[in-house]
């Protein structure tokens, strides 16, 4: 027999879950509007990145990028004693498995390289990854936790500048970047790539026939292939960092929207279940009170 207190407890629980649903619904809507803009920005950056890859491919095929003495320092392969990677995560949680998946991928990368090198360092972008690697006890070369929701190229320049300068100075010998690649609203993939030394892109199918067709053409280079490389290579690194961060931002908002939608749905389902239990309990309470009254009256009449 449910008592009045039990009925009230169910009602309080319903209220509480309803409030949670309101909060998650609001977060879902905020994420949805940020997501649209973040996705647009990530997609808008792709044509430039593709063209740049094409230009670099063409330049690389007409200059010596094998790592010889006269090649650019950013192409120079050397024995790795200090391995560093840029680890991009969100500042906030409540985005499903987004951050923990990224942290797991980052940890796997660190552990994979650790046995072969003297030092592994992290450059963390985003609080979640920073805290993770801090707890794991990895040295951090730098941390960036205030990029905002829509970073511009100049916001991300300090990140690429650190790795480029340290690489040229010989402080670090190899740099990777890890981020959640945006596939679509439902799918984000933890992705790790080497950014230094620069590996000239392979001549692959992805580039389209326009680029492939240009492969055999004799180009005029002004000022010279080496001169162009000199300006292009640092920018190529900057672009990869910028592109990765935009992808990560689009992934973050998408993952958060999906996670919050799932939370709202779950909360609403729970409210529906509780409503059923509540009504049943209330009905039983009324019935038992009625029985008491009826029983009482019968006793008096007798």
């Amino acid at each position, binding site marked *: 027999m449910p008592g009045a207190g039990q009925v009230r407890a169910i009602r309080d629980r319903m209220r509480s879950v309803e409030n949670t649903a309101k909060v998650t619904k609001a977060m879902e809507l905020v994420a949805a509007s940020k997501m649209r803009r973040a996705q647009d920005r990530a997609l808008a950056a792709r044509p*430039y990145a593709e063209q740049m890859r094409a230009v670099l491919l063409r330049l690389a095929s007409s200059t010596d990028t094998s790592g010889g003495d006269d090649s650019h320092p950013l192409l120079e392969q050397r024995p790795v004693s200090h391995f560093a990677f840029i680890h991009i995560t969100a500042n906030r949680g409540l985005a499903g498995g987004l951050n923990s998946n990224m942290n797991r991928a980052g940890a796997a990368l660190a552990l994979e390289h650790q046995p072969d090198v003297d030092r592994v360092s992290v450059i963390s972008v985003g609080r979640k990854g920073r805290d993770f690697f801090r707890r794991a006890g990895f040295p951090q070369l730098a941390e960036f936790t205030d990029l905002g929701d829509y970073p511009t190229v100049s916001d991300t320049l300090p990140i690429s500048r650190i790795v480029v300068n340290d690489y040229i100075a010989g402080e670090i010998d190899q740099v990777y970047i890890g981020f959640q690649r945006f596939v679509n609203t439902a799918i984000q993939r933890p992705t790790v790539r080497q950014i230094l030394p620069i590996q000239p892109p392979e001549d692959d199918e992805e580039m389209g026939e326009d680029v492939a067709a240009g492969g055999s053409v004799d180009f005029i280079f*002004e000022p010279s292939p080496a001169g162009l490389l000199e300006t292009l290579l640092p920018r190529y690194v900057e672009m990869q960092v910028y592109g990765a961060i935009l992808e990560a931002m689009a992934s973050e908002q998408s993952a958060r929207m999906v996670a919050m939608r799932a939370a709202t749905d779950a909360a609403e389902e729970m409210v529906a279940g509780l409503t059923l239990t509540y009504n049943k309990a209330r009905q039983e309470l009324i019935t038992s009170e009625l029985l008491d009254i009826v029983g009482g009256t019968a006793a008096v009449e007798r």
Partner: protein
Amino acid sequence: MPLNVSIVTAEREVSTRDDVQRLIVPTTEGQITLLPGHAALMASLDIGEMVAVAGGDRDPMVVHGGFIQILRDQVTVLADAAESIDEIDEARAEAARERAAERVEGRYTLEEALDMARARRALLRAQARIRIYRKYRGM
């Protein structure tokens, strides 16, 4: 056959048009004019004025460095930044020019000296913006 010109920056696709008869671009080696049938070329861009001429119309833009590539009448401009005249806010550009000029001319410490190259480029950009704006919007 006119030129097909697409201008992209890291942040957006600025414009794409396929009716350009002449394209005047500032390269680091000097100003060049691209006509249909131009040999395949890859060049680095300077800060300055880029003009697309189509059917007697001149469409001027300010480009802030980058790369240009022409291959079979297909021109790709990979600009660090590019703005059409309408996008330039003269007052803002003027303010930026003054700030940059101060930094370039002002006294600076060693650490600030490392930023000089950047300040100088900012000054060049602001000057180009103003110069080209005034050329087309009168002053």
